[in-house]
C-alpha cells in the first residue's frame, strides 16, 4: 500500500521489497541506490513498460509493477503480462 505522493520504489522498500531489477551483464540483483532518478538501480517494468525509474514515479492505484530482468522488454496491451508480482 503506497501513501499519496510516494514513489513506487519507496512503497516497495516500505513493504520490505529490496530487489527491483537484475542486471543484464552479471545478473546481479539491485535495489535502490540514489533515490533521485539518476543511478537507474530502481528500474522496473511498470504497467508493461520497462526502464521506469520507480524512485521518481509516483505509485498509483492499480499499477502493476514487476522486477525488471536485464534491459527489459516492453509488452503491450494485447500481450499478457508474464509472472506479475503484485504490490499489495
Amino acid at each position, binding site marked *: 500500500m503506497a501513501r499519496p505522493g510516494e514513489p513506487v520504489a519507496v512503497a516497495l522498500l516500505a513493504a520490505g521489497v529490496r530487489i527491483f531489477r537484475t542486471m543484464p551483464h552479471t545478473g546481479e540483483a539491485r535495489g535502490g541506490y540514489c*533515490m533521485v532518478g539518476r543511478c537507474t538501480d530502481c528500474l522496473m517494468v511498470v504497467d508493461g*513498460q520497462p526502464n521506469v525509474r520507480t524512485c521518481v514515479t509516483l505509485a498509483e492505484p492499480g499499477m502493476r509493477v514487476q522486477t525488471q530482468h536485464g534491459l527489459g522488454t516492453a509488452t503491450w496491451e494485447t500481450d499478457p503480462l508474464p509472472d506479475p508480482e503484485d504490490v499489495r
Partner: protein
Amino acid sequence: MTRSRVAVVGGGPAGLSAALAVASAGAETMLIDEHPVPGGRLRYRRTPVATTDGTLLDPAELIRQLVASAEAAGVVRWPGVTAWALFPGPRLALSGPDPPVELAADRVILATGSTDRPYPFPGGSLSGVFSARAMQLLLNHYHVRSGRRFVVIGDGPESAELVADIAAAGGKTVAVVDGKPAGIALAAEGSSGVERVMVDGVTTEVDTVVVAVGRQPDADLARLAGAEVAWRAAAGGHIVVHAAGGETSVPGIFVTGDAAGVTDITTALSRGQATGLAVAATLGLIDANDPRLVAARAFVTDWGCAGTEEPDRPSPVLSSARVEDIPGGTQRETGGSELLCRCEEVSTAVVLQAIEAGAQSVNDVKRRTRAGMGACQGCFCTSLISTLLHRHAGIARSEVHPMTARPPVRLLPLERLAGQDSTR
C-alpha cells in the same frame, strides 16, 4: 515591449532564491523542477537552516516561505517537469505533464544542485547500499526506514547528520567508517542484499550501508550547452567555470547553488539570490550598482572565476575523504573487482586495464570499456575515471575533462520526443 523571460532550472534553495530575486525585479520567471514537490535538499534535511538574515528556520518552513514569496512575486512554477537539454539561445528542452517541448528564454539559471559522490567498494552495488541523500530522503521526507542495522561510510557534517537521522528513525548505526579508503579494507556481502560488512578484518552483521563521502556539482545541462568546465577539488570535482554573478562562458546561461560548487544551504540561498539579482542587472531591470546586488555578492563563494587558483578554504560539506583519494586503497586488496560504473557493470580493474592500454581521456575509457555509457551518463563514475587517469596516466587535472555531454540528460521514452506521448 515584452518582458524579459528567465527560466530557472531546479527548485532547491538556490533556485527558489534566484527565481524570487529575478521575478521581484520584474522578469517573467519560470521555475522548472523535475520533482513534484519543491525544496530540493530542503525536503529531506531536518537541521534548522540559517537564512540570509541569520534567522534559523525549520527546512519545511523555509520551503513554504520561499515558495510563497516566489509565487507572490509572480514566479510560475512547473513542478514535475524535466529539463533534458539546454542549447545556446538559450533554449531548454522540457518533458513533463503540460509544458511546450522547447522553451526559449532570455536567461537560463541552472540551480540543478549536486549528486552524491561515488565510493566503489566490493559489494557496493548490492541492494541495501544507499547514497546519503537517498537515505535522508527515505528517512526524513518519505518517513520510511529501510533497514535496521546501518554502517555509514564517511565522516564530516553530513555524515553526523545522517547518523542522527537514522537514530531518530529508530535505526542503529553500528559503525561509521571514515571515507579515507587508503588502508581500509571494506567489503559488503550478502546473497540477495547486504547481510554483513567487513571493515579492517572485523565482520559485522548489518542490512544497510550508507555512502556519505560528500557531494559533487551536477551541471550537465551547462556542459551540454558548451560551457567551459574546470577541476576544483574543494568544490567537489568538475565545475562549470563562472564569474561572481554566476555567468558561464555561454551567453545567457548562469549557474548557481551547488551546481556552481558544493556548499552549504545558507550559502546556496545567498548565491541564488545574488545570481537572480545579477541576471536582473544584465537585463537592465536593476542597476549594476544596486545596493541589494552589491550586498548579495558579498556572500558569494567563488569557486570558478576564470584564472583563479583552487580556493584554499575547505568546503564545509565535503567529508575528509578527498576527491583524489577515491577510488582508493580497497582496490589494492580486492584486485579492483568492485564496480566503478554501476550502470554498465564495469569494474575498476577493467578501467585500469584500459588506461594501461593507452586510454588518455574519459571519452576514451568510455569507448573502450562502456563505463559512462549507461543511463546515468557518467554521473556516478566520471570523477572516479578522472581520478584514475590523473593518478595512473599522469595526466594533469586541468587536462582531464568529463565525457562529452549529449542530450537527453535524463532517460526519456522516445514517444515524448516524437510528441506522441501515450504513456502519461
